[in-house]
């Protein structure tokens, strides 16, 4: 069982991801923006972060940079979510391990999460 932090400000996305990941047997913690996510990570270090890009207070780019600046969190796999095509966001953020375009597919989530957790374990 892995601990996964889901970060999204939009109602419904976090709830859906949480439900799917719980069904897959993971422990899920949620946050509504990058700043909130950093607070949650200080409480419990996750095995994987799934974060939206566009959020208030601190966006996904800010969160990723803060993680990279902290040696304790720099190696945690980071999955980025956004509604725009991947080519459109590369100027804002480049260091992520997987990209999930919204609206995503349920099957896609489970597969991507399994792959990222597997690569981390390896």
């Amino acid at each position, binding site marked *: 069982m892995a601990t996964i932090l889901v970060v999204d400000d939009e109602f419904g996305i976090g*709830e859906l991801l949480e439900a799917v990941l719980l069904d897959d047997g993971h422990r899920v913690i949620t946050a509504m923006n990058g700043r909130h996510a950093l607070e949650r990570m200080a409480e419990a270090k996750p095995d994987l972060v799934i974060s939206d890009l566009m959020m208030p207070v601190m966006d996904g780019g800010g969160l990723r940079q803060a993680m990279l600046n902290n040696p304790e969190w720099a190696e945690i796999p980071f999955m980025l979510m956004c509604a725009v095509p991947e080519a459109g966001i590369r100027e804002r953020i480049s260091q992520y391990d997987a990209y999930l375009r919204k609206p995503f597919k349920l099957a896609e989530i489970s597969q991507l999460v399994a792959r990222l957790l597997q690569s981390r374990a390896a």
Partner: protein
Amino acid sequence: MTDTETHDHAAYQAPPRLASGITGLDEILLGGFVTNGIYVIQGTPGAGKTILGNQLCYNHVANGGRALYVTLLSEQHERMLANLQTMRFFNPSCIARELNYVSAFQLLERDGLAGLVTLIRREIVGQGASMLVIDGILAAEAQASSALEFKKFVHELQMLAGAGDCTMFLLTSARDQTVAPEHTMVDGMIEICDAAYGWRSERDIHIRKFRGSDTLRGRHALRISADGITIFPRIEALLHTPPRRRYASPQPRVSSGVAGLDAMLGGGLPAASSTLVLGPTGAGKTSLGLQFLGGCTADEPGLMLAFYETPEQILARAATIASGLPPLAQSGIVEILWQSSSEDLIDRVAGDLLARISAQRAKRLLIDGLLGFADMTVQPERIPLFYRALANELRGRGVTVMCTVEVPELVGPVVQPPISHLTPVAENLILLRYVEQDATLRRVLSVMKVRDSAFDHRLREFDITAEGIVLGDGFAGAQSVLSGFAQETAASDSGSG
């Protein structure tokens, strides 16, 4: 546009469409539902919501999809399936395989909306359902503690539709509220209605909201039969953009079938035009129409839509006045369609007519008794626009049309078309009348209008003989002929003296 912009636009392609497989529905949706959209289907009890929901599922399964039908406090599954057995789309072999019925009322009572969402998500994933129908969504709304909670529920379904690759339909009864919470959130709102018009009842469907595409707006007739639901798009909406065709100059002419009338028209009826032949009963309208059809050939086939006489009656009459017609009908060059003008749907009849014209490659069309359309509909006020749309379409297809229209006045100074705003639509107008002269009732033909063409304005007496309509002389020496009572002119009196 820059390369980047081109790339960005390509990344935002229009979502794919999901054909409903219901005749007429995909036409008014201009291609079907948006895949993974969420739609509310609202209607009065008995309007056909459950049939529509089931038909969508069975059609989806027939096309290789998988469907889930969730009921919330609606009729029992056994009873619903028993009622569906009379429908041709019903296919018991797919039940509990590609199509699953789930009753979720007890779970809803016990676990609330959160439990219902979890059930739906697990069922969609577990069964690989790409279509979901929730029948009785009002029960879910009643379970919500607030409007906000119900909106959250709909939002979660929306997320699930996109993430689960599942197109969803929420069936609900009509309510007094004009805008229900879910209406603002979903991708489309479809209303079906069963309304009484005097002694009659008609069903219709109305796409009230549809994200991602234009639709044929307004109400369209809906019928439930052993075929399930069939929708007949409103002709005025369906044919709003008729096909365009090149016009030759001078415009080719098509014989009316009466040599003298062709001369009055300046060489015949303009090809691909529409002509109204107005006159009282027995004046010779159908005879003229049959002679017009008698000019059909293998290269120029024809079609007749008759509202008041059967094909047998028509052919018997044609044998005496348009003897060329029966052999043409026998060889299939002319097809005669009979349509009772009692209760029916004008959009169904017009749709069938257009289909037959295409199949027959008809270039001449006679509609004998245009008012048959008005007689059969509960919306006679539609007829002028309906006829305009039909005439424009037929013109675009290169069909020369003649329509007979009965006027109520047998003799008299006033001829009142029974439907206003009808005559301006037709390019050509021919008036047949009775006139009393010398204590004898005579028939008179006059050409009232030939659009963009000169024509003979004289009144001509005519007879219907064994060879058909034969035009006689004009009414020289007579005046006030169109009053219905011809009188000798003063000039004629004094000229002789």
